[in-house]
């Protein structure tokens, strides 16, 4: 018997069966691979935090071990999901703060490591869909991320002064834009302002603590 493959009944049954088979197949693959994917995502977050602490080029197991060694506690702000990680590295207390913002084409995110004096210890930025070679440089260019190191984040009143600008006037607090990616850089700037605002009291508390604990030469530097 030859089926009439052009009859409406055949087409409807054919597509229904096909869709059900494909749906089962995809659901199965998704379920089977989910644990591994989750592990990868978790490891990626840890690696990004290590990047912000200037520990780069570690592969899976090494990164896992280093993370366990360096990161002491993890706190989450219940209101906005922002996270803070207390770390100890080379005998220094460093706090890594998670950041989220908007770039030109999609979300951007990052981790900023803050040292005891309220200065940037290290930075790492990530993006979802910025243009390769332009906006994507916030993630790809290690040199650009290293420009943040040593910048002052808050002024005496607790306002965020760390910024990304086109023309650097105050090298103590400002970082040069990525060339050709002004809008993405503006996004990074807004993300820093927004994400670090909530940490001012916390950070100033830490600053006073260290100032009290150290000799007066450091206070003059501040």
């Amino acid at each position, binding site marked *: 018997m030859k089926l009439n493959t*052009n009859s409406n009944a055949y087409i409807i049954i054919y*597509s229904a069966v*096909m869709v059900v088979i*494909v749906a089962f197949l995809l659901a199965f693959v998704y379920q089977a691979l989910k644990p591994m*994917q989750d592990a*990868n995502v978790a490891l990626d977050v840890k690696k990004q935090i290590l990047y912000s602490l200037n520990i780069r080029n570690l592969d899976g197991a090494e990164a896992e071990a280093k993370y366990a060694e360096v990161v002491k506690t993890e706190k989450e702000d219940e209101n906005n999901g922002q996270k803070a990680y207390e770390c100890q590295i080379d005998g220094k207390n460093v706090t890594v703060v998670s950041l989220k913002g908007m770039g030109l084409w999609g979300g951007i995110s990052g981790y900023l490591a803050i040292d005891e004096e309220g200065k940037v210890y290290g930075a790492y930025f990530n993006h979802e869909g910025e243009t*390769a070679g332009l906006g994507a440089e916030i993630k790809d260019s290690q040199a650009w991320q290293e420009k943040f190191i040593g910048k002052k984040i808050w002024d005496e009143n607790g306002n965020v002064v760390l910024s990304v600008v086109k023309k650097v006037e105050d090298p103590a607090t400002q970082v040069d834009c990525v060339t050709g990616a002004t809008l993405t850089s503006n996004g990074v700037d807004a993300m820093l302002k927004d994400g670090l605002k909530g940490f001012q009291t916390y950070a100033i508390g830490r600053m006073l603590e260290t100032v009290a604990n150290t000799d007066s030469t450091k206070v003059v530097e501040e």
Partner: protein
Amino acid sequence: MALFSKQNKEVFTNPLNVDHPILGQVLGICSALAVTSQLKPAIVMGLAVTVITAFSNVIISIIRNTIPNRIRIVVQLVVVAALVTIVSQILKAFAYDVSVQLSVYVGLIITNCILMGRLEAFAMQNKPWPSFLDGVGNGLGYAMILVIVGAVRELLGRGSLLGFQIVPDACYDFGYVNNGMMTMPAMALILVGCVIWVHRAYFYKEK
């Protein structure tokens, strides 16, 4: 028909030479421009497209006689989309870094014209084995161009290959600067143009 008869060999080698998917048929240009700024994602993308083209060709070829003619494009799309989703999930599980680098372009394999082109032009009329060879041939032809363009762009744009530094530091001390233009998609277009030029010059002379 023998597995590697003359006909089958031609099916496999044609897309690598005269009937090259990018150079001859000018299919799949868009993703060739997007993922070739470095060598590693270019290789993975080439492999992913090869696997997906080969298997979607086989599947479509097996069910070609049952597919209702009026919804054949829909059926082809469902098969391709299912395969692409599976490959993308596998990449996320086993090669997370690469899947992040390829980002949306894995998903966009679905719309890669090589796939639909080969399914319509070849798999719908041929038996599974030749279809498989055709898929692998076209996929490898595509991968070949990605690798050539990716290698040139990474070498000139970043001074490295597969992430390893190739240009010695001494060159940078003498004032050598990486060509930032190479990391942009526009240069990929120009490079593909050059490869097409060489390819045409060679094969048209032969004819």
